[in-house]
């Protein structure tokens, strides 16, 4: 999967740099910017608001003039369609495409009630994205490149299985969601570490170094490698060239971070704390892009099967989501 990336834009650009390189396609007659943005929203733990944020960020982008495709990559627990008030019924979904029941990906992308926002549904009851093959994912990414959209947003499944990590790594802006609870934060670190080590294992060209990376994934490894700094030193000691590739992989890995369900200013600061720990322990340069407060309007909007930013645009949570979207889109 070394050449599956959906855009050629360097992934280490920070939000401002990236925003400056792409603009929404408000006027079809206007010459199009070549860059397509691709976001993946993950976080390791279930129930932390990944789908909620994916739907609402995609809705804000569509309302701002971007042509958006929202993809439910959680085949086992798909529910983006419900968040958007789309009844699944007998509609085609992503598994129909992955298992060749529908050949044309365009036909799997259905219109939603939000102008400019299309949805590729996951499928309830499917055995899980973990069972999709590397070839299936590769074909999906190749087809996605052909679609005429400005922004693709992946809503990832909970957990850190290979398929989920690959979706996170193949997009160029991976966003991690965490809530202020220790369990969610622990899973977020685990997800980030697994994602980075998977990228690293792919980047390393020598087989013994790849094995070393895999060995280091186990916290109780015999070499005593605990932090990313430990691993880097060990790799650089064994092979200077691989050490250089390590540095490059680390530089390119810049996940975004959002804290959801924040109740007070102490919990706002948890985003900074996670960023600090990512630097000190994982060596990862995570970018804290914002937080969303705990708000009754959120569950009301979910119960009504409508995006919060449309159902309760004046709520605090909607304001925070618009702020994150504005920052991500650079509008």
């Amino acid at each position: 999967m070394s050449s599956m990336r959906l855009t050629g834009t360097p992934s280490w650009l920070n939000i401002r740099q990236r925003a400056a390189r792409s603009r929404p396609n408000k006027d079809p007659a206007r010459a199009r910017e070549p860059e397509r943005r691709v976001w993946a929203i993950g976080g390791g733990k279930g129930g932390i608001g990944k789908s909620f944020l994916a739907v609402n960020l995609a809705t804000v982008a569509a309302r701002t003039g971007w042509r958006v495709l929202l993809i439910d990559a959680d085949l086992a627990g798909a529910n983006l369609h419900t968040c958007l008030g789309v009844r699944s019924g007998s509609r085609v979904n992503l598994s129909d495409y992955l298992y060749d029941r529908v050949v044309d990906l365009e036909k799997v992308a259905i219109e939603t009630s939000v102008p400019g926002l299309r949805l590729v549904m996951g499928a309830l009851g499917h055995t899980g994205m973990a069972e999709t093959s590397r070839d299936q994912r590769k074909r999906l990414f190749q087809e996605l490149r052909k679609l005429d959209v400005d922004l693709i947003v992946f809503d990832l499944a909970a957990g850190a299985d290979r398929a989920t990590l690959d979706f996170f790594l193949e997009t160029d802006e991976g966003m991690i969601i965490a809530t202020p609870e220790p369990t969610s934060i622990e899973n977020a670190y685990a997800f980030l570490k697994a994602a980075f080590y998977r990228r690293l294992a792919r980047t390393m060209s020598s087989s013994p170094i790849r094995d070393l990376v895999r060995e280091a994934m186990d916290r109780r490894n015999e070499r005593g490698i605990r932090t990313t700094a430990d691993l880097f030193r060990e790799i650089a000691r064994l092979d200077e060239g691989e050490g250089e590739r390590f540095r490059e992989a680390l530089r390119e890995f810049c996940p975004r971070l959002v804290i959801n369900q924040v109740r007070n200013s102490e919990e706002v600061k948890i985003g900074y704390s996670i960023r600090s720990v990512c630097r000190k322990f994982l060596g990862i340069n995570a970018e804290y892009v914002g937080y969303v407060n705990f708000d009754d309007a959120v569950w009301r909007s979910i119960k009504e099967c409508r995006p919060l930013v449309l159902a309760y645009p004046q709520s605090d949570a909607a304001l925070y989501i618009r702020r994150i979207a504005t920052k991500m889109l650079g509008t």
Partner: protein
Amino acid sequence: MRPLSDQNFYETLEISSDATLQTVERAYRIARATYHPTSAATYSVFSEEENAEILRRVEEAYAVLSQERLRREYDARLRREELGDTARPTREPVPQPKARPVPSPLPSPQIEFDLGPVEPEDGVYDGPALRRIRMSRGVELEEISALTKVNGFYLQCIEANRYVELPSPVYVKGFLREFAKCLKIDPHRVVETYMKQFLERGEA
């Protein structure tokens, strides 16, 4: 990527070497919260001993960087060490022979506090708008109360738009002015827009 034990004080607090005192203060507050024994952010990552060691380094860094004279002396020492050997760990006052150093793969760390504007889109500062701004600054109501000497109960009432529980307008104006100054927003605009609602709805 330097190990924690080799990081200089600026790296420990994740700030640039030209950070203002205000940035130092804020970085310290965040670092102290991050590595506090009860912190949710480090619970699953560091052992109690590691956490305590990082916190000790944070305190040490703050003690120097928050004092102008000590910081000047420390900066001079860093410069001397840079001139001698750019990659030598700067925490060590005595040069030690080392193997060829491995350069850092990360850019120099810096805490960015700007999560984007939270000021009200319509320019009207009601209670929820003030609460949003306060949260984005990472400040608790208790801290505002301690700084302004305004009773915490009244600050809560202001944020919740509970006009009827607030005292007479002259006091509320004073509270708002102090609150706005703490949040570094325009006190005049805050008083003007909040009081308009207070007088209209509070008397209704």
